[in-house]
């Protein structure tokens, strides 16, 4: 698309590392071959994905405009860049930033790329990546060359690879850390990048580092490998090492990573990560991507067997110098300050808003006289001009570096404290002085229906609405509520990390009176601290437009009824999920379409809402179908299963979850008047035949995985259950039920108009 694409390669000769320059030449040639029809769609899709070039919503060339579903008439017509993905359709470029660390020159390059190839915005993600949206595939090699010229690679930013290696952004300056994990995260990222042992995974693989157990900054418990810095006394000296966790992950069904080793030495860090990768590559699921993450392998083998296999693999690895060569510089590694330490002198002339900002966005460092300053970015978005401004202040106040946080903000470190008023004034001037970092106003959201192909509801629209509300109410928000976290995902895939929020939401849809209505499942009781220490459970689905009311109601009740120093998690546990659900019951009602059509549109989207962007039901009317009653009854059953789970009745929870799935499957069969006996075997058989084998039930992107949850649950109906397996089964029942709602919605949708 860019007129200059043909000239950049020449302009950047000598400025890119040789291996990256060569890779990008190859990628450009692959693009040319694809245009000539000489590369298979699937092969090309995996090729670009491994370089971080994703598809984006509507890239199949169809979009519902609120009235009718239309074809998008791109100039390249039927040329594709992957299965069902049109060549000209805008895509997303993910840029992995190991441990979230950027320098001023890189910030300026990101600004240039956001302006020239995207929409002027760089989006920071919950895994310390940067994403550019609305990028044309033919601009991608040039974009990546310009990144390579500032030492950034997008290689393995997507695909079945080791994704961005993340780390606590306070590493090196934190009061409570054991030691700075930065050099270890960096070494791990580059050791595994392109490593032959990480090229044959069935699914993605995520690694995170944290300097301590207590805080949330590294979120190690939600990763395939989580590493927490620890030290021990050994032979009279302090020895560095890591607590090693494995098999965690959010996704549709979240798994907590398990403690694999209480202490691995720093020398064993890289070989053990490599060994774990080899076990995963060898034994992990390859055919069914829905069960291919390492968490499923650990659960299948059991922790002890998995550990045994990793130890065997480690023992068989040929020695690699790189395992330890980086260690000679590790202890000397330290980011340095630009300016001498100083103390803040509060003066009456401090800029307006400074104190409020300082209260929430500034924290003391371990090093006296220095502080960290958080640049709050609503929804993780920053403009090109703001990126340049951040580069300027990084050069002026610190030694040019900054970190992306998992809460989608930017963290400046090594700020000499007396510089704070001047720094704030400069940030404020550029629209970057927003207070409220790490408060309830600092809402996290994935892209959702804005740009993600999987989005069901508008996570960013809702996050924007809640953010505006809490910023407006900032002064009057009770202290007990101020520190709560809200995290929102547009679907069940958890990119917004809703499972570990105090108040989490994920997008679902409901059919009401023949219309699709955007909803969010409310998840309460997740734990952000202790590296994502506990996952919440669903309370019930609330219409999108009533989520702000739901948030107000829940937080108001917490303020009114909490006991002394009672945390939000403890409060939710004490009043119980049944009471939480009751509290929201009236908010779940949806007024008829003609009484209030606003419920039938999503936040920040004027179009009539459609399920999966597939259209308004053909049989729109005011008659409630019996299936809606039946599916509502199943939701009640899932909720009862959750209550059993909370009460420690794991067998009852599992049994009820299985029954709810069976009833939901029967509801679909009944709705289509497909004959079956009222027996589990008959329901499963008919459901498989009518909905699974025909692929009618298949989620457009998840395929048949939700049906597989159902089949597996029925096959193992007599299995014994503990807290973990029962929890998982309840989650799977909820997801199967959502899939039943979606299937019903899709089958009600209208056809595509050309």
């Amino acid at each position: 698309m860019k007129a200059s694409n043909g000239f950049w390669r020449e302009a950047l000769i000598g400025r890119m590392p040789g291996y990256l320059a060569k890779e990008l030449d190859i990628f450009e040639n692959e693009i040319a071959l694809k245009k000539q029809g000489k590369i298979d769609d699937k092969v090309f899709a995996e090729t670009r994905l491994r370089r971080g070039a994703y598809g984006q919503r509507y890239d199949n060339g169809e979009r519902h405009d609120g009235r009718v579903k239309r074809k998008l008439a791109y100039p390249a017509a039927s040329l594709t860049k992957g299965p069902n993905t049109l060549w000209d359709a805008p895509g997303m470029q993910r840029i992995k930033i190991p441990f979230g660390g950027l320098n001023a020159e890189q910030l300026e390059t990101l600004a240039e790329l956001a302006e020239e190839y995207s929409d002027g915005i760089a989006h920071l993600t919950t895994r310390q990546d940067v994403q550019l949206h609305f990028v044309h595939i033919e601009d991608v090699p040039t974009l990546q060359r310009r990144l390579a010229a500032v030492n950034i690679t997008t290689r393995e930013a997507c695909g079945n690879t080791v994704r961005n290696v993340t780390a606590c952004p306070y590493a090196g300056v934190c009061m409570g850390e054991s030691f700075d994990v930065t050099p270890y995260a960096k070494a791990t990222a580059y050791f595994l990048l392109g490593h032959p042992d990480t090229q044959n995974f069935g699914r993605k693989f995520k690694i995170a580092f944290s300097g301590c157990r207590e805080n949330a900054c590294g979120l190690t418990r939600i990763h395939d490998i989580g590493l927490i810095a620890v030290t021990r006394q050994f032979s009279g000296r302090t020895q560095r090492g890591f607590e090693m966790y494995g098999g965690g992950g959010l996704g549709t069904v979240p798994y907590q990573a398990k403690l694999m080793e209480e202490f691995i030495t720093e020398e064993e860090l890289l070989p053990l990560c490599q060994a774990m990768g080899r076990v995963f590559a060898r034994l992990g699921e390859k055919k069914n991507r829905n069960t291919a993450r390492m968490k499923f392998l650990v659960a299948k083998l059991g922790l002890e067997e998995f550990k045994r296999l990793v130890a065997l693999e480690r023992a068989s690895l040929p020695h690699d110098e790189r395992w330890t060569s980086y260690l000679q510089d590790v202890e000397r590694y330290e980011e340095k300050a630009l300016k001498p330490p100083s103390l803040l002198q509060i003066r009456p002339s401090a800029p307006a808003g400074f104190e409020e900002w300082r209260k929430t966005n500034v924290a003391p460092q371990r090093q006296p006289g220095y502080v960290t300053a958080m640049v709050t970015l609503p929804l993780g978005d920053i403009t090109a001009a703001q990126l340049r401004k951040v580069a300027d202040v990084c050069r002026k106040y610190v030694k040019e570096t900054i970190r992306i946080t998992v809460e989608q903000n930017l963290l400046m470190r090594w700020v000499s404290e007396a510089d704070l008023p001047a720094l704030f004034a400069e940030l404020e001037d550029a629209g970057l002085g927003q207070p409220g970092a790490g408060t309830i106003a600092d809402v996290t959201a994935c892209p959702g229906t804005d740009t993600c192909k999987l989005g069901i509801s508008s996570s960013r629209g809702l996050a924007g609405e809640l953010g505006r509300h809490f910023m407006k109410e900032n002064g009057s928000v009770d202290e007990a509520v101020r520190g709560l976290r809200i995290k929102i995902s547009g679907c069940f895939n958890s990119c917004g990390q809703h499972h570990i929020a105090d108040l989490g939401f994920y997008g679902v849809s409901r059919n009401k009176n023949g219309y699709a209505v955007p909803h969010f499942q409310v998840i309460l009781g997740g734990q952000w601290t202790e590296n994502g220490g506990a996952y919440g459970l669903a309370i019930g689905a609330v219409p999108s437009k009533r989520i702000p009311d739901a948030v107000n109601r829940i937080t108001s009740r917490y303020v009114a009824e909490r006991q002394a120093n009672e945390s939000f998690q403890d409060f939710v546990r004490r009043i119980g999920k049944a009471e939480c659900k009751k509290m929201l019951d009236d908010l779940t009602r949806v007024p008829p379409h003609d009484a209030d059509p606003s419920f039938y549109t999503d936040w920040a989207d004027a179009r009539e809402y459609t399920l999966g962007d597939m259209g308004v039901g053909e049989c729109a009317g005011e008659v409630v179908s019996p299936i809606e009653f039946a599916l509502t009854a199943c939701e009640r059953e899932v909720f009862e299963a959750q209550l059993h789970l909370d009460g420690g009745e794991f067998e009852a929870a599992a049994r009820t979850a299985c029954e709810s799935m069976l009833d939901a499957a029967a509801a679909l069969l009944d709705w289509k008047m497909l004959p079956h006996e009222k027996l589990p075997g008959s329901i499963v058989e008919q459901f498989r035949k009518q909905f699974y084998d025909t692929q009618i039930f298949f989620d457009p992107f998840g395929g048949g995985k939700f049906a597989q949850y159902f089949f597996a649950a029925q096959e193992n109906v007599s299995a014994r259950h503990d807290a973990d397996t029962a929890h998982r089964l309840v989650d799977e029942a909820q997801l199967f039920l959502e899939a039943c709602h979606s299937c019903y919605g899709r089958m009600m949708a209208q056809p595509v108009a050309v």
Partner: protein
Amino acid sequence: MTAEMAGRVQVQHVNVKIFAEDTAGVDLAEAIPVFHRWIQESVCEELLIDVADYRHVPAGPGVLLVGHEANYSLDLSEWRLGLLYNRKAATDDNPRENLTQAFRAALTACQRLEQEPEFRGKLKFNAAEYEVILNDRLLAPNTEATWQALKADFENFFSSLYGVGYTLDRPGDPRERFRVVVKASGAVDALTLLQALDRGGRSAALFGHSLSRVSQRS
């Protein structure tokens, strides 16, 4: 920027931002249904795809109508509301045609927005002040050399619109894109300028007698 590259200077990917005046009554949220309607009604020849809401970004893109060949936005960058037209698709290297195309698209969008029910009587653009940005740092780096290469093209174009009654100012931060701020010597609305553009040629000049001036800010 090498001399060899300087030979490649082109007027491509033209962005035009026309500023709004008296924006107190404008609620940017109203742009969301308006832009969705533009997609539904296919109001222009370009392929319109989707609407992006960036109201949460201070001094950001505001509300953005994403297209294939170009984006339109009610843009808030540098804290000033305006209609920004961003030509994405490459075209032939014809400076006058490329400037004319971008201006016509931007002015048409301004006029259309002013007439939308959500904005009627609230949103008014002043086509006497706007910015022209060339969104390609390789073909048009923000340097004096680029300006010297393009000066005649720009002056010819703006003279045809305004006669000599305008000034051009080129902010000089080399990290930014090549940008020219254009100020006419008197107020002019989008419709008037659009008509002048459609007539084309020097006879369409709106202001006849003041001297044009070029300055550079750094």
